[in-house]
């Protein structure tokens, strides 16, 4: 079977053997020369470094330890670049570097888990609604419409108030707010693939529906799913940090970038770094996902690129 799918033997004539690689693998060899390649590689490197940094969090000391010498003589936070406190201290004299790195860990953890859960729900609903037509599709898509018409942050506060906050709460809230976007896109793509010849052939061969979805439809939208996944990750991190900023997510004293922003906003007049440091790291986390998503989006010939940021 595989020999049928492979590219024609272009490499037979190639002298140096470089082109002997099947065409489908060529993009992996020279990622930078692909359209969107530099963005994708930058995004992956940035995301990798941020994850690595957040995993090293214990090395930077406790985020809750208050340094007795952590404030200036006037009782102000130490500025960034002070000896012993690379990013300065906050209003209580706690090390900003340790807090930021631990906060980054929490933000990325919540973002990545919520990204996976919202994608999973969205993909399952989208595939089922797109493959099985009729009233089933109508009902599922009306539910999707309902979730798409509630503004995310307004409803996020309402849901968080009822089911509670904390890491688990915020993951549930963000999943509830974001699954419908994926569901709508996956539904559209499934409905398009449903009429393909190989799906028809599988149906005639009496392959059960779930097997067709899993083996014949899902693999065909893998590049779309990667694209959606990256942009969804960006949106989810923004909302997660945003809800924590508003007090509806991770609660103090646990450091989280959004919650640290809220703390920093009250001291930004006399110590701007307490606001700017978590702000920059929030921006970088989102930027990594946006770069990956936009980079992936430019590879395909897809005219309407997926993008639903700026919450």
């Amino acid at each position, binding site marked *: 079977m595989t020999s049928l799918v492979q590219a024609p033997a272009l490499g037979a004539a190639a002298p140096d053997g470089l082109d002997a690689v099947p065409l489908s693998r060529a993009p992996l060899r020279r990622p930078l020369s692909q359209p969107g390649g530099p963005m994708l590689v930058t995004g992956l490197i940035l995301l990798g470094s941020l994850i690595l940094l957040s995993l090293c969090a214990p090395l930077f000391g406790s985020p809750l330890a208050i340094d007795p010498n952590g404030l200036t003589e006037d009782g102000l936070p130490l500025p960034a670049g002070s000896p012993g406190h690379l990013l300065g201290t906050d209003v209580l004299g706690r090390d900003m570097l340790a807090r930021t790195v631990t906060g980054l860990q929490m933000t990325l953890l919540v973002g990545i888990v919520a990204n996976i859960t919202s994608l999973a729900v969205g993909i399952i609903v989208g595939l089922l609604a797109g493959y099985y037509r009729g009233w089933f599709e109508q009902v599922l898509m009306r539910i999707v419409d309902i979730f798409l018409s509630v*503004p995310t942050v*307004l409803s996020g506060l309402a849901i968080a*108030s*009822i089911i509670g906050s904390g890491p688990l709460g915020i993951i549930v809230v963000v999943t509830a707010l974001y699954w419908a976007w994926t569901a709508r896109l996956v539904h559209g793509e499934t409905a398009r693939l449903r009429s393909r010849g190989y799906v028809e052939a599988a149906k005639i061969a009496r392959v059960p529906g779930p097997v067709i979805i899993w083996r014949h439809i899902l693999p065909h939208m893998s590049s779309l799913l990667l694209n959606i996944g990256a942009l969804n990750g960006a949106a989810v991190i923004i909302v997660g940090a945003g809800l924590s900023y508003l007090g509806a997510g991770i609660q103090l004293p646990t450091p989280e970038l959004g919650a640290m922003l809220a703390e920093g906003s009250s001291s930004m007049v006399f110590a701007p770094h307490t606001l700017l440091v978590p702000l920059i790291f*929030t*921006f970088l986390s989102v930027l990594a996902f*946006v770069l990956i998503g936009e980079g992936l989006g430019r590879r395909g010939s897809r005219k309407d690129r997926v993008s639903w940021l700026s919450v």
Partner: protein
Amino acid sequence: MALRIGRRFLFGAITVFGVILLTFVLQFVVPGDPARSIAGPRASPEVLEEIRQQLGLDQPLLVQLGNYLGAVFTGNLGYSYSFDQPVSQVIFERLPATVWLALLAFAIELAIGAVWGSWEAMRGRRSALLTTVNVGLLSMPTFALGFLLLLLFGYVLQWAPIEGGTVWANVILPALTLGLLGAPYYAAAVRDGMITSLGSPYLRTAVSKGLTRPVIVRRHMVRNVTAPIITLAGMDIALFLSGVVFVEQIFAWPGLGQLQVVAFQNVDRPLLTGTVIIAAIAVVLFGVLTDGARALIDPRVRTGE
């Protein structure tokens, strides 16, 4: 045409009904004991019993649902504990402030988007600088940009007092925050619309029959760009209603967004869910309106091509 709008209205009504149903589930089904979740963990049994009777919580769930739906459809969204006023009254007092903010933000993003998009279209290729700005804005959370603008104008340049209190600080800066974040979408729509228009046969005909440039731009290019912009504006309302929560909080603008945060801090559930219902109605209504407007402007939408 009428059928199309009628269908949209029907689907919109179903959507709003679904949102109301969801708020019911959130308020009365998800918490094991709604009376306790309203009164707090330290409430006495007598108080709990009183709340249950007052809200009809001792009746079967379906009867409760009927009562709830009946109340919402007659415009009664419940009573706000923290403001000691009916929810609908609290919301409609705050609504105009948010509408003003959204209108100003829309004007800003449209202005930036039109200039940016037509510049890119006329240039014929993507500019690296603009791509960078675009990716930067896409990655910028609303609250982050809001704080950056506040720091820049209030702290570094000192044009706007950081405590707020002036119209400039309270409206222009939040509107600028939302407008800047929306501008890349408008720029892309304007650019794509103009590029399609520039390469189209009707434009070639217009040029060859000797129309002047302003007439071509007005009659052919602007109309071609208007339809996608109306679609964007229709989707913007949902983004604005989320964005205002942050900017109103940062810039102390007393609108719906700030109201929702106050409601959250006071655990004022009727107010929290009431705002969601009003927001969903606004989103759905806007969707129907912009769909109708698009059909009026663009004959291709009418005939379903």
